[in-house]
């Protein structure tokens, strides 16, 4: 196991350097620079323009900029935002908990509904129940997030008045920033009712962000279950006279879950991408919105730092998923140990 872990970690090193190069290159490939964008219609004289670029270190050759950036990263310094003059790492971690909280709730929502829906569809294969679930999941998968979010706001917030329109917490509560996770911070605070308000604010964004993963998980669970259900050992289990529930929940599901866990791992990257839109609609103060703003204002340090940190998160999640395989199916671990 340890050997496997070290192997995996070693593999991440070239990936990490690749990511730094992509993050560094991406923002520089875009035309325009932060000084021009900031000055807008007012303009900036060529001398002043050159002076500011030199101050920011953008006058040096690209390779030199890259290596000095790499050197800074290895020392844990991601630079200072050109727009706000604050350290990028500080800005990122101020907003990151909000995105993690939202993504976690979204994936929980997707799992709670998606896995049972997939199982039911598989066991009722070919019936109207199966077709109904798969039809709905295809609709969910094709749903444009922006439109879906607005639709839910109009229905649940304005017509029915059940949920707040946007934000993380009602303005009447003043909760101290302890962990950055609103559900935890509100529990720690003595503001009565703030936890409910935070939970209330999480419902719609989680549903919107969780819709596509839900559809994917339901479809994957269904197909994995169908495959497993046709295996010999399931037939044997049935022949032994085990209850259908035991056959499905204990014997089939565990094996089907391997595919599902892989899918969840892949969904993390998609969740972060979806978070950009979801956060914009729901006024959610997370990193998605921050990255978009940084790209538009050509805030080089914020974009490259933000992309790098997000990539590291995705790498870590995928590593965890790899490790989880072993727990779900010990045979995989044994095979790995052999190789």
């Amino acid at each position, binding site marked *: 196991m340890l050997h496997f872990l070290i192997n995996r970690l070693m593999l991440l090193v070239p990936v990490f350097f690749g990511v730094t190069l992509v993050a560094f290159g991406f923002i520089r490939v*875009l035309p325009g620079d932060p000084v*021009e964008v900031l000055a*807008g219609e007012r303009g900036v004289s060529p001398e002043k323009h050159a002076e500011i670029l030199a101050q920011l270190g953008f006058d040096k050759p690209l390779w030199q900029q890259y290596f000095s950036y790499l050197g800074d990263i290895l020392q844990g310094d991601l630079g200072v935002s050109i727009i706000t003059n604050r350290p990028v790492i500080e800005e990122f971690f101020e*907003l990151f908990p909000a995105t993690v909280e939202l993504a976690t709730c979204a994936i929980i929502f997707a799992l709670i509904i998606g896995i049972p829906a997939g199982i039911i569809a598989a066991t009722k294969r070919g019936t109207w129940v199966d077709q109904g679930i798969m039809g709905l999941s295809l609709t969910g998968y094709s749903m444009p997030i922006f439109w879906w979010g*607005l639709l839910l706001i109009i229905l649940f917030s304005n017509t029915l008045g059940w949920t707040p329109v*946007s934000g993380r917490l009602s303005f009447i509560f003043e909760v101290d920033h302890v962990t950055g996770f609103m559900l935890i911070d509100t529990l720690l605070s003595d503001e009565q*009712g703030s936890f409910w308000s935070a939970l209330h604010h999480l419902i719609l964004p989680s549903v919107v962000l969780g819709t596509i993963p839900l559809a994917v998980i339901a479809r994957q669970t269904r197909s994995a279950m169908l495959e497993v259900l046709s295996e010999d050992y399931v037939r044997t289990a049935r022949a032994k006279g085990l209850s259908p529930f035991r056959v499905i929940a204990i014997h089939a599901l565990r094996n089907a879950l391997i595919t599902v866990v892989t899918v969840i791992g892949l969904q993390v990257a998609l969740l972060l991408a979806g978070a950009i839109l979801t956060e914009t*609609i729901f006024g*959610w103060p997370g990193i998605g919105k921050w990255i978009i703003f940084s790209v538009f204002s050509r805030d080089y340090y914020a974009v490259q730092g933000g992309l790098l940190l997000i990539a590291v998160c995705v790498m870590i999640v995928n590593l965890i998923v790899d490790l989880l395989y072993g727990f779900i199916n010990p045979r995989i671990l044994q095979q790995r140990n052999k190789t």
Partner: protein
Amino acid sequence: MKKTLLIASLGLGLALSGVAQAKTLVFCSEGSPEGFNPALYSAGTTFDASSQTIYNRLVQFETGTTKVIPGLAESWSASADGLEYTFNLRKGVKFHTTEDFTPTRDFNADDILFTYNRMWKEDHPYHDVGGEYLYFGWMDMGSLLKSIDKIDDYTVKFTLTKPESPFVSNLAMDFASVLSAEYGDNLAAAGRKADIDHKPVGTGPFVLKSYKKDSMIRYIAHDDYWDGRSNIDKLVFAITTDNSVRYQKLKAGECHVMPYPNPADLAAMESDPDINLMRQEGLNVGYLAFNTEKPPFDQKIVRQALSMAIDKQAILDVVFEGAGSIAKNPIPPTMWSYNDDVVDYPYDPAKAKAMLDLAGVSGLKTNIWAMPVQRPYNPNARRMAELIQADWAKVGVEAEIVTFEWGEYLKRSRDGEHDTMLLGWTGDNGDPDNFMFVLLGCEAAASGGNRARWCNKPFDYLLRQAKQKTDQAERTELYEMAQVIFKEEAPWVTIAHSIVFKPVRKEVIGFKVHPLGSHIFYDGVDLK
């Protein structure tokens, strides 16, 4: 679940009614401020959150107009040669008391010197803290100032290098917000200079209480405010970037005022009994500039003909969806010295064609540059360019639409690579000089800010004369004449001034739409 939600909503309702006694106004702002020192930044979002709440300036714009009125200076006078301005400062003005700072003295001349010298003098201990002083540079204050002297604790004299009558208006701009020198000294002693821009202390009507990026800004009323305590006890900026969502929040009563509505929502807002849809002509102009250095646009008659070939009303209907007015002058009608006697070119394709023939122009192939971004003065440049392209095709001119990334667009157009281009301007200080000299003067033609690259000596002479006069009536006359020359010469097709809409809930009283775009929650703003 339903029961839980019901209890939660009940709790929320009870809490809201409790807060109603401490008057809380919620503004659904459109984004996060870049920081809390308006001298370092350029976005209106930042100014709303800093200069208009936390700070004051020596002189200020009267809410709802561009008239300059006393602020931290009770009065001021200019010398006859227009080179010296003396300001008499207000006494008894208190700075905010915050967690980090308790002022021991009232505002005085030292604070003015601290504020301006920080932006101006490179050897000032705070000059290198924070970043670039954008507007100070853009308004060319560095080369305009000769000296700033403290005459006594409550008198300050500014000496200029040349007469510049818009100078006082410049001092009313957001960047000129006055900081506390005492706070600066304390922070320097504690080795925390950078805090001056992040933990702001001002003299303004509201004190910053907390800020969570992309989420919320909270203020409380400044109890000792020199112009009387605000009617609003707590001011909250609920940051909501999407304009449709802002509207949903306004409808649901989650905020009281919202900026920049989606034009598609205006009709619904108008008919909503809970919303008062306020409007005002924006202090802006959207135009098409001819590159007068390139033939055939160096000929006046060609420019006039192409101006006549454009159906501005159609642009107004399609691009502005009615939320604008046709522009005939380079300055908006709400600005003093606007010359209403100027007659615009009528839409007359037949005459335009005849004039082009007269100029010997046939089969002209050209380009129209369209901005890639949405601006108040041009909500959809691509669409506007298409309409102009179609209009010009009718008079035999074939135009190709060109666009670039925004930074690139500005840079290339400043270098004069375009034939004709769309752009616009939003006023900074309510002075006609800020439109005409910056956008159409000979100096701007050389530096590129004048996209028409048009340098007309008589026009430029009038603008320079107007800069030197301090009497507004005299200046008005000069600008009125300049507008006549401008129309005759037609370096631009003036297209439209936008109308700014501000949806406000009915329970808000006393709110005024400000022509310079700021959102002001003081000065008579209250909740029913």
